[in-house]
């Protein structure tokens, strides 16, 4: 099959072209060793099928970003039959800069001149035929958005792929022409492939080339000693960049005819930016957009219509919510109209998943299998799958909104306006979005960290994402806070909930500051970012994007997550003698026994040994939260029933409804069994918020970190931070004066880090001087 690679600048319409060419044949993988998507597909409308690989968006072929290295290695090592270089016609000169580099490689090469419609709309004209003549490679005008010109493009690609092409350079007449020619001859003599490309890169003293051709680089160094340019000195790299741009503007600007002779005209996009990136209004507008996104995804009172008009609930209206019609109606409305995100979620979870899995569970229950096997399949595997699949709607809805922000070009502006604030914590503005997405769900948030260029910054961001308490942790907050208020009749449940959110954010900031000054030290990368022109997002692109995410998530749900769910289920339903236990006998399970064993470790956190015989329930609940945080409260309900069944536990369920969904009564039962106090309960929330997140998030973190050491470090980080935060909450809550000890400890740590770093810096500088 003919192999074709698609290369071009970011925001040049590359993805749209790729989707247009390959349609449903596309699949996404990863480039080896890095988390950059590798997309491949097949174009079938030519005489032969053509496989298309989408290279990452790049500005040049120098090896400074992982994307550039990938694109460069692919073209040179994998030797595609042809390269399609997509060029944004509205920014021709800058885009041709990359073309002049690809031109130097001995590979057939076709230019797809994209966004010609936008150029014409402005009243400008670009002469594609003239450009083709000047460049000496085929140039085809296309519109990736409208799908125009794709067949012509691929016909020419097909033809070009059948012929050999020898690299050419635009640097033939410049000051370095001699050097490049000599190095090229030397490299060709050594049998190096693509001698021209390597010669130019060697002249630029490109890192990778200097390493690969240690002998030949001497030629460049010798030449450098004899050379001096008035403007650039001996900075060959700048000299070559300048020469490329000069050549482009001298030779190719004549193909553009501009309607406005005026040099500067501000576009609609610029006008929008005057408001959206405004000094004062930029941030409030962004907060409004963010609020809208979360409101549309999670609000159970769309536009607050229910509150404003005081709608009646379905029960008051006399609707039978047990019947199918009522259930369906309840997905859309119950005393308030739900937001689109919640409606999708309800339809998926209450109707599709509930009925499909309900049917499956009924089928298995009716079968003649052994009791433990039915339990394993139903409660272990199927319930686990249900728990994981229930995440799908909010993840996809959030993803959809964030993809819209990304596609429209607004995301780049958000990163820009927040950059100044984030720089203080040692992160760049781009880190904000993944963090805020964490309030919805950690999984899409962690995947979104791919927009961060620096690995250490990425690791730090991934680690603190779970501290931005996700939707599934909210039930723990409301249940425990509600129980505190109900049982001890103090405080305000909402206030406790908000306070815990705040605690998560503060922990995240402190943790980032700590990591960026110790284990994940590194300079915050400078913020240099292209702001693409605003445009309406493409429906087709959005859907393809969502479909990719769904496949990715479901695949994971059926492998690692199900496996972990089964392990936890087995541990909580078998005793050490491998006898099967009913739900109510959970106290005899391996999990409970192990929890009792580790109970002392949790003493400083307020829910350890001091709680006596039944203290282990909190530990079991926390461990079951590893599957999904919703389980924490569900486990309380199970355990409350189990404790009540045991004589002498002192649990009195009179007046309590432990099956109630909010879990407040179940937590109250726990409080009366263990005698835990308010500090212990708050510490329990804090522990669950900051400890290892659910398996779905852990699996994602593992995939995104790409390196095992960093992944293990992350697990340890979560454990340590949750112990520290929870014990701080417990001790300060129990004995207020311990706040001073914690403050002193933090101050001491800060001082140690600062002075250590200072000394390390001095040493480094000394070393440099010597």
């Amino acid at each position, binding site marked *: 099959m003919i192999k074709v690679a698609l290369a071009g600048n970011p925001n040049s319409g590359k993805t749209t072209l790729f989707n247009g060419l390959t349609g449903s044949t596309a699949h996404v993988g990863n480039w080896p060793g890095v988390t950059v998507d590798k997309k491949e597909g097949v174009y079938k409308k030519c005489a032969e099928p053509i496989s298309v690989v989408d290279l990452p968006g790049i500005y040049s072929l120098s090896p400074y970003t992982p994307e550039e290295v990938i694109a460069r290695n692919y073209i040179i090592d994998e030797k595609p039959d042809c390269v399609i270089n997509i060029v944004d016609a509205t*920014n021709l000169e800058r885009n041709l800069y990359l073309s002049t580099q690809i031109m130097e490689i001995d590979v057939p090469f076709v230019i797809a001149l994209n966004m010609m419609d936008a150029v014409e709309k402005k009243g400008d004209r670009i002469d594609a035929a003239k450009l083709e003549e000047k460049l000496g490679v085929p140039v085809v005008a296309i519109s990736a958005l409208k799908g125009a010109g794709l067949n012509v493009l691929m016909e020419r690609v097909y033809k070009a792929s059948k012929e050999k092409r020898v690299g050419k350079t635009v640097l033939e007449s410049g000051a370095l022409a001699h050097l490049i020619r000599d190095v090229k001859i030397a490299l060709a003599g050594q049998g190096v492939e693509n001698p021209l490309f390597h010669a130019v890169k060697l002249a630029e003293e490109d890192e990778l080339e200097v390493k690969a051709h240690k002998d030949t680089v001497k030629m460049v160094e010798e030449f450098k000693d004899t050379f001096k340019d008035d403007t650039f000195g001996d900075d060959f790299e700048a000299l070559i960049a300048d020469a490329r741009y000069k050549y482009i503007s001298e030779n190719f600007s004549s193909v553009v005819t501009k309607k406005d002779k005026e*040099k500067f005209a501000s576009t609609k996009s610029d006008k929008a930016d005057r408001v959206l990136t405004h000094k004062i209004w930029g941030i409030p507008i962004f907060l409004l957009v963010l609020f809208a996104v979360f409101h549309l995804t999670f609000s159970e009172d769309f536009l607050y219509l229910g509150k404003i008009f005081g709608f009646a609930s379905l029960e008051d209206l006399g609707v039978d919510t047990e019947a199918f019609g009522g259930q369906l109606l309840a997905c859309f409305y119950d005393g308030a109209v739900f937001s689109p995100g919640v409606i999708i979620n309800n339809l998926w979870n209450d109707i599709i998943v509930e009925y499909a899995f309900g049917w499956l569970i009924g089928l298995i229950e009716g079968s003649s299998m052994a009791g433990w096997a039915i339990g394993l399949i139903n409660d272990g595997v199927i319930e686990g799958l249900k728990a994981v699949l229930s995440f799908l709607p909010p993840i996809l809805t959030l993803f959809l909104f964030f993809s819209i922000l990304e596609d429209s070009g607004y995301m780049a502006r958000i990163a820009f306006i927040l950059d100044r604030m984030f*720089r203080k914590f040692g992160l760049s503005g781009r880190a904000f979005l993944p963090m805020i997405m964490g309030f919805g769900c950690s999984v899409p948030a962690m995947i979104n960290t791919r927009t961060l260029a620096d690995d250490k910054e990425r690791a730090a961001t991934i680690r603190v994402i779970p501290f931005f308490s996700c939707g599934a942790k909210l039930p723990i907050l409301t249940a425990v806070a509600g129980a505190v208020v109900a049982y001890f009749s103090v405080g305000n449940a909402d206030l406790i909930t908000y306070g815990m959110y705040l605690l998560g954010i503060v922990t995240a900031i402190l943790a980032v500051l700590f990591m960026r000054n110790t284990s994940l030290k590194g300079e915050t990368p400078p913020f240099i970012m*292209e702001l693409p022109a605003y445009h309406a997002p493409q429906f087709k692109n959005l859907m393809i994007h969502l479909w990719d995410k769904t496949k990715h998530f479901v695949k994971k749900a059926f492998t690692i997550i199900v496996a972990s769910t089964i392990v936890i289920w087995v541990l909580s339903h078998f005793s050490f003698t491998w006898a099967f236990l009913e739900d109510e006998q959970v106290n005899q399970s391996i999990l409970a026994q192990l929890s009792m064993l580790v109970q002392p470790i949790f003493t400083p956190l307020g829910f350890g040994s001091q709680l006596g015989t039944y203290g282990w329930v909190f530990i079991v609940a926390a461990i079951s939260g590893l599957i999904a945080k919703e389980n924490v409260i569900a486990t309380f309900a199970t355990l409350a029933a189990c404790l009540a069944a045991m004589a002498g536990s002192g649990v009195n369920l009179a007046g309590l409804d432990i099956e109630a969904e909010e879990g407040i009564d179940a937590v109250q039962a726990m409080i009366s069994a263990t005698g835990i106090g308010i500090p212990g309960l708050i510490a329990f929330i804090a522990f669950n918020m900051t400890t290892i997140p659910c398996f779905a998030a852990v699996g994602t973190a593992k995939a995104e970190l790409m390196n095992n050491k960093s992944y293990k470090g992350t697990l340890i980080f979560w454990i340590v931070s949750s112990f520290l935060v929870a014990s701080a909450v417990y001790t300060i809550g129990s004995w207020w004066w311990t706040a001073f000890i914690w403050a002193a400890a933090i101050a001491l740590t800060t001082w140690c880090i600062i002075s250590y770093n200072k000394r390390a810096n001095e040493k480094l500088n000394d070393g440099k001087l010597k």
Partner: protein
Amino acid sequence: MPIVLAPVNTELRILRVIAEEKVKKHLENLGVVVNGTVTVLSSSGGAVVCKIKEGRVALDRDVSTKILVTPA
């Protein structure tokens, strides 16, 4: 003068880029080359949005103090 202090909506010529190698290279790829032209579209608290070639590029305060320009 550094581009932070440059007047908006005026065409400027780039005199020097004093950034470290990697940053300089990235800027070159985006079209920030000595003797090239650039127009500042907006500037707030040190951060700058400018027009380079036909593209719009945002720079933080650190980077924008390192690009020296003069009115063209």
